[in-house]
């Protein structure tokens, strides 16, 4: 699978990309929101791991921009956040086209398990 990882924390992106690569997936990594949006708009990914809380241009900003441009429909976005998000925020994100909202810290096995669901849906 082609996976894009967007998080301003480089330790986190490095760890996840190492994990996903060893598990046989191809990973792209960006550490800021604007570059993330740019990549999503110009390339195709099977799944996007998106950190919600980033300075300047956050994960929520990316979701909003993709929602407004209508480009969110083709994306499989999993948001991650280390702060607890309310049910309202989660349902807003999902109504805009986010597939899944998960909490940090997360066992990478569990994260990958969720991402592989997208692949299963596609093959069906």
């Amino acid at each position, binding site marked *: 699978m082609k996976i894009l990882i967007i998080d301003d*924390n480089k*330790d*986190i992106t*490095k*760890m*996840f990309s*190492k*994990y996903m690569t*060893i598990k046989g997936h191809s990973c792209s990594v960006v550490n800021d929101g604007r570059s993330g949006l740019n990549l999503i708009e110009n390339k195709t990914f099977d799944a996007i791991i998106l950190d919600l*809380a980033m300075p300047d241009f956050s994960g929520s900003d990316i979701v909003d921009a993709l929602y407004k441009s209508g480009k969110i429909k083709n994306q499989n976005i999993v948001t991650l*956040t*280390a*702060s*607890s998000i*309310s*049910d*309202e925020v989660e349902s807003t994100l999902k109504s805009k086209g986010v597939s899944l909202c998960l*909490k*940090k*810290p*997360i*066992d*990478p*096995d569990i994260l990958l398990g969720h991402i592989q669901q997208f692949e299963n849906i596609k093959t069906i």
Partner: protein
Amino acid sequence: MEFTDVKEKKPYGTSQYARSLIEASLDPLVTISPEGKITDVNEATVTVTGVSRENLINTDFSNYFTEPIKAREGYERVFKEGSIRDYPLSIRHSSDQITDVLYNASVYKDDKGNVLGVFAAARDVTETKKVEKLLAEFTDATAKTQLELTDATAKTQLELTDATAKKQLELTDATAKKQLELTDATAKTQLELTDVTAKTQLELTDATALSEKLKGVAKDEFSAMITHELNTPLVPIIGYCKMFKTSMLGRIDQEQLEAIEVIEKNAKRLETLITDIMDVRKLDLDQMKFKIDDLSLDEFFSNLDSDYKKILENKRCQFTTNQHATNLVIKTDKSRLRQVFDNLISNAIKFVSENKGKIETGCMKENNKLVFYVKDNGIGILQEKQKELFQKFYQIDTSERRSVGGTGLGLAISKGIVEKLGGIISVESDGKTGTTFYMKFSL
């Protein structure tokens, strides 16, 4: 349609005219049967609860309040005293939004004087409460500023008077014209002073309001920030532990594996601690959100049973569930209730001996109460230690207890949650042969 039915049958003597009057009220109105079931509501009640009229009617009225017990107490008072005035309660919307209200309620009777039920009208005071709080804070700040300003003004005026008197003395021989000029100047200075004072007060008032607003935001964001900052470093720690453990970064020997497992265990413990601290904070600030839904106890206990049988398989500790009350559906927040059970059961696991450990959970009906319990055959808790048990960061201080770990917040959180859900938690132990925790809820 239900509405037409009600009109045609004219239950409880409601005429169409009376109904239209009730419907015209912007305040939530409700009639309740002597059994505590809702018999009729107006549109305003539907709006404030987020529940349709059909779904409200025939349900327990106390379900829609944040404090069902207090609601029922108020209801009982209506029967005892005939009516109540300005009884404060909070209505919970299906989306968890809370509306603070004051209730006026009285019994209503048929032609023969038989009590048919209770008629209750609520007045939304959410905004009033907010304004009252702001106003109080604001008045304090303004009063203080005014006091300081009055002091400064008085001082300046005193100095000014002194100076004027002095000048007048010096000018005793001077012309009336000069005195007039001086008086003019004094008046002018005083006028300017008043202007400046008024302006400063205005600016200060603005600043006070703004700083109050910021304080509120800061309080909300503080928790979110702390959670975020503490959880973020755990992501790579837990991630790399996983990779080492599964030999993704090369084979590791037994000693290395044990070290990694200790790191992982402690990282997870830190994660639990962060969640627990935030739960305590939410409970302290009354910000914990509860999602009240129907919960089938059969399902709840069957999940509990299969989950813990799996977990305890290797520990050679016996786990049983004993449901003395079956087919019960209650209104509660199931994940918070489960959190309480998880806390109590994990406590029990820590204090039972590995081979002879027995943990039993279950529920039973006692009069009109539902009682849950978690019972173990562990080392027990001495009578004199039981009182302090539910305090934060409290763990009974024996080396035996200290060795078992835990955050020391589990019981404080459990007590907070049980009470917010309208119940009471208690403990029973002879200090030798085990401990039983009880949670009692009204049915």
